[in-house]
């Protein structure tokens, strides 16, 4: 039925909660998960007569993100009031930046199947978050917790440069990685410290005029974003094909039902009556300040990736996985600095660490073991003090409890037995006890030796040096 070819035009508004200790305009804690209203004061609950004072760290994080995304930094900044009534907004206005956002005209590069693509960043502005509404299932009321009210946000507004769900995911991943590396936010979609609103329109392929767009909200995972985009594309194409019109509106995605519904229609479109915030003085940024923030910029992912290959000789695959998480990269570098064996450290991270993370349904950010203990384990295994089976067992202990492997191996008597005399006695006994296997071996059944190695290991409680066992066995046979 679909005769025409369509393309999507997608732009994103991404809100990121900044990792400051205090709120944007008052000295209340931003800690997540406190009892309701325990992190509030007259400023963040909008009491008459209270006055906001800007948190300097917010400006510096916003600048850092802007510089890392190739934006121009606005020299003279001011804040504006966005007026609307909603119970999670105690002042009846949100302090935001409309006329002079702190960052403008940036871009980031993403990798697509057709190569590198640049996604424009229209602007980044600073603003405050709203409180949280909890709907009381029993009483006919809602409850407001203002702990989140006044938590600093940056809103990153892209240009409508994306054409597919894959490009949207690549762009979000790029932003998340950059901001995590800067330490400006932990960017967790599930916990809401990173939120993406997606603006979508479709048009006939080859045309340049933009179609009517809709804005999709409530997207809490990369999977939900991809699904919502595909769903909305099909909905809009169906409307157009059946001769109806796409209405400009905000829609809310329900990921369990895989369906979106209209939140507000054009009839009651918001009129925010922005005006300059008179309670805050302008923020003037000079070259020195920009240079200072720039000089503190840590190594970002692309640079790290290149350096891991260059400096440590890691394969592409290893470098890509390890730099895929700031936490993983930090552990890798610290452990490598101690033991000087990058590829060995990388193997422990890529194989056993990844396996255990998956098993425990954890994220790399949740890792608790210290690089020092991983480095010690690498040394123990590399020196042959413990064999690989024992090493895996010790690593699980490190992963779970961050034990000191030197002490643990000592206390539990896990050292590999390299004593040739002792090994010869044990192997001699194994050979004597298993005449059938010995005969099989002599009759050309190479595999029989595996059984004898296994019996020896069993007798040695897994602590024998496997190379020596093989060598002695072959001698005795």
């Amino acid at each position, binding site marked *: 039925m679909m005769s025409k070819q369509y393309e999507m035009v997608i732009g994103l508004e991404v809100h990121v909660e900044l990792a400051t*200790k205090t709120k944007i305009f008052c000295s209340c804690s931003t800690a997540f998960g406190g009892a309701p*209203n325990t992190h509030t004061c007259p400023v963040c609950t909008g009491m008459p007569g209270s006055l906001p004072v800007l948190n300097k760290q917010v400006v510096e994080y916003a600048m850092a993100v802007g510089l890392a995304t190739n934006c121009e930094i606005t020299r003279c900044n001011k804040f504006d009031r966005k007026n609307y009534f909603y119970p999670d907004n105690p002042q009846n206005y949100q302090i935001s930046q409309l006329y002079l956002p702190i960052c403008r005209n940036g871009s980031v590069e993403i990798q697509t199947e057709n190569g590198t693509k640049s996604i424009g960043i229209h602007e980044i502005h600073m603003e405050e978050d709203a409180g949280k509404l909890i709907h009381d299932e029993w009483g006919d*009321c809602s*409850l407001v917790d203002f702990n989140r009210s006044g938590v600093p946000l940056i809103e990153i507004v892209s240009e409508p440069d994306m054409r597919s769900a894959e490009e949207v995911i690549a762009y979000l991943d790029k932003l998340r990685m950059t901001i995590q590396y800067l330490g400006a936010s932990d960017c967790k979609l599930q916990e809401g410290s990173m939120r993406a609103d997606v603006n979508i329109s479709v048009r006939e392929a080859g045309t340049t005029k933009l179609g009517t767009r809709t804005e999709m909200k409530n997207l809490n995972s990369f999977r939900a974003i991809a699904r919502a985009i595909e769903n909305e594309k099909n909905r809009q194409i169906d409307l157009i094909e059946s001769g109806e019109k796409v209405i400009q509106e905000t829609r809310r995605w329900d990921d369990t039902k895989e369906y979106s519904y209209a939140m507000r229609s054009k009839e009651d479109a918001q009129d925010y009556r922005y005006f300059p915030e008179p309670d805050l*003085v302008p*923020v003037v940024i000079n070259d020195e300040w920009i240079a200072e923030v720039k000089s503190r910029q840590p190594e970002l992912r692309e640079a790290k990736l290149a350096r891991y290959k260059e400096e440590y000789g890691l394969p592409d695959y290893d470098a890509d996985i390890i730099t895929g998480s700031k936490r993983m990269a930090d552990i890798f570098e610290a452990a490598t600095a101690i033991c000087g064996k990058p590829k060995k450290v990388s193997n422990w991270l890529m194989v056993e660490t990844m396996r255990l993370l998956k098993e425990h349904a954890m994220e790399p950010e949740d890792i608790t073991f210290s690089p020092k203990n991983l480095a010690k384990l690498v040394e123990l295994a590399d020196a042959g003090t413990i064999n690989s089976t024992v090493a895996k067992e010790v690593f699980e202990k490190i992963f779970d409890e961050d034990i000191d492997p030197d002490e643990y191996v000592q206390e539990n008597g896990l050292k590999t037995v390299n004593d040739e005399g002792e090994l010869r006695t044990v192997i001699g006994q194994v050979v004597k006890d298993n005449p059938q296997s010995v005969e099989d071996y002599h009759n050309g059944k190479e595999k029989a030796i595996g059984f004898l190695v296994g019996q020896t290991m069993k007798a040695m409680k897994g602590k024998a040096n496997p190379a020596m066992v093989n060598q002695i066995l072959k001698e005795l046979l």
Partner: protein
Amino acid sequence: MANIISDETIEYVGILAKLELSEEEKIRAKKDMGDMLDYIDKLNELDTAGVEPMSHVFPVNNVFREDIVVNGDDSEQMLKNAPEVKDKSYVVPRTVD
């Protein structure tokens, strides 16, 4: 009075401000708003070519706080401002997106 505020405008402004005005109040509000716009028109007669738009009345900028938690848990005191409290939260009419 040069500026005439229409019935639609006063209705719309009332909706935005969440105000319900009586007929009498609407007449007064229309006159007040008209006067204000007249005053703005008067200001617009000034030649402001080459004058930077003012963003604040004081010639001060860069007033900051350091990022240090100073406020503790003052929820008991804060919640005294609430008309009604439940589960340490402010009770408001049921609100759903």
